[in-house]
């Protein structure tokens, strides 16, 4: 299989790169001085693309690669892949579900605790020497707060299970109500936001869910409410989020994702009720290896005419 060309647009994981290099002819697009040129040169031999949450395969790339057979994403979210185009051309698409579910859910809870209990701010307080001059202020209890989840899929359910251990009542919004769950359902995100204290975004990013958290939702969540985004940046209207936080219409936010990563609105840097992470939802040694193994396993299965491990298309 060493002759099969696999295109990787940006660096994502050195173990994955090493393994891909062993088994295939890995083409690292980011090392090319002229990217469009590079693509043209290799267009007839590229049979696979390995993408992630930041770079996938849009219509333009797919059109430029006539021999493309499979896009294997090093992520569970595939919003950067033009799925319709892939379906149209019979291109397979795989992602990395399940293996990262828990890490993302763990981080969601970590963000909730960090925001409500001001973990990062009080760590800053200690490191700056301010504790010598006076106690840090009182914060807000996390246990028992109502958690509202947008999207009760794998990640949403894992967040719910963890929050329940903190005695948090759980409610959710989903495209359709789930019959097999005891959590309270709300038919709209605004209603969900009006009835919870912590709102978590845990659904996939699609045309329908873009800006699902808008000004109205943030106002409904309110000056004591906290927004946690572990989904995708475009789930939230980012300029509206910034003004809601600055104006105090929203009580706080814990963000792992942004509309234009790695750009983060600088107005948020000085806010003590905001915790900002650099898209690390699945960023553990253990999980990234499992994700990489899934990408490799899917590619090997495809090129051996075996059933794909985690196909989406």
């Amino acid at each position, binding site marked *: 299989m060493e002759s099969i060309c696999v295109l990787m647009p940006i660096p994502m994981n050195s173990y994955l790169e090493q393994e891909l290099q062993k088994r295939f002819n890995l083409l690292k697009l980011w090392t090319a001085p002229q990217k469009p040129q590079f693509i043209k040169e290799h267009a007839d031999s590229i049979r696979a693309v390995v993408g992630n949450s930041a770079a996938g395969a849009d219509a333009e790339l797919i059109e430029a690669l006539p021999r493309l057979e499979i896009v294997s994403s090093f992520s569970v979210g595939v919003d950067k892949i033009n799925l319709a185009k892939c379906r149209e051309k019979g291109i397979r698409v795989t992602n990395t579900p399940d293996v990262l579910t828990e890490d993302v859910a763990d981080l969601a809870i970590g963000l909730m605790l960090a925001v409500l*209990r001001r973990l*990062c701010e009080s760590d800053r307080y200690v490191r700056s020497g301010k504790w010598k001059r006076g106690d840090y202020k009182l914060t807000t209890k996390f246990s028992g707060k109502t958690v509202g989840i947008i999207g009760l899929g794998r990640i949403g359910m894992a967040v719910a299970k963890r929050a329940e251990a903190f005695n948090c009542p759980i409610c959710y919004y989903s495209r359709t109500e789930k019959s097999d769950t005891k959590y309270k359902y709300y038919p709209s995100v605004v209603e969900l936001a009006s009835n919870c204290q912590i709102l978590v975004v845990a659904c996939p990013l699609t045309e329908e869910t873009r800006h699902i958290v808008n000004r109205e939702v943030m106002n409904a969540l309110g000056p004591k409410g906290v927004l946690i985004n572990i989904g995708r940046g475009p789930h939230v209207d980012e300029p509206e989020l910034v003004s809601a936080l600055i104006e105090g219409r929203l009580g706080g936010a814990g963000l792992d994702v942004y509309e234009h990563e790695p750009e983060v609105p600088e107005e948020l840097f000085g806010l003590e009720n905001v915790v900002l992470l650099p898209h690390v939802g699945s960023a553990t040694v253990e999980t990234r290896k499992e994700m990489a193994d899934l990408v490799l396993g899917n590619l090997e299965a495809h090129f051996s005419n075996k059933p794909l491990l985690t196909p989406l298309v």
Partner: protein
Amino acid sequence: MAHGIIHSHLPRVLVVRPPDSFYLYQSQHSHKFHFLKAWESPLPLDQFLSTHARNVQTMLSCGRFPIDVDLLCLLPSLRLVVTPSAGLNHIDLSECRSRGVAVANAGSVASCDVADLAVGLLIDVLRKISVADRYVKQGLWTSKTSYSLGSKLRGKRIGIVGLGSIGQEVAKRLEAFGCSISYNSRKQKQSFSYPFYSNVVELSANSDALVICCGLSDQTHHLINKEVLLALGKEGVIINVGRGAIIDEKEMVQCLVQGDIGGAGLDVFENEPSIPKELFAMDNVVLSPHRGAFTHETLTSMREIAVGNLEAFFSNKPLPSRVMDD
């Protein structure tokens, strides 16, 4: 105001140093109790007490000022000490016992908050939350940089030191993350199926993270020593929401400096608010200024339970959260 005359019919409560938010005790309960505020007097404490407190039966502690034999000697009529904290290490319990002075604390009202902080610190250390927040807020996240990876929670073996109210809440929470729980406690707790280690070094050797949830006593002073820390190992994490002196702080700092343990999340220290300066340079350490129980909600609960104990005493009813000898 002439407290002494106007309020002389109200039951008296001595306050040597005010607990947090004492103004709320005053504003909400001064119709029930006459608070004798020793710190407001120009008299030195022993004089104040011999002049004004010879007949005082109850005392409201601030949770830090030591209630020791010297103080107790000056309070011959004392029958009850109420502390709004869960911690009791500032009170000489055996001296109180021998003098027939009952002690009431905050019971388990603060346990959820302290457990939440312990879990928050553990997630923070393993997933590098505070350090990543610093990184982003300093504008260091660019497309060229990628952040260093953290460590997964599922499968981590958690060793809980002290399976009281706080330890139990920590266990319940971490189980939901797929962690496995073991513990060391003064005695094994039959109602829990978690593996019990009678020896804290053994617990440490079989744990990926130790969470210190016990109280500070003569038996637990420097319980976490060099041997325990080395047994925890290079990837091991220590979380302390108990009292600073349960850990031999000097040894812990050495272990962190030398990479003999992997990281720490600390809410308490031996000489608060002084912190060993070596810790400030470390990214694998998360520091918290003793805020385990300090949420608005829990301070309110602690105040309510303290007042509840005082009310019960003055109505000859059983104390809601009397500290029993065990």
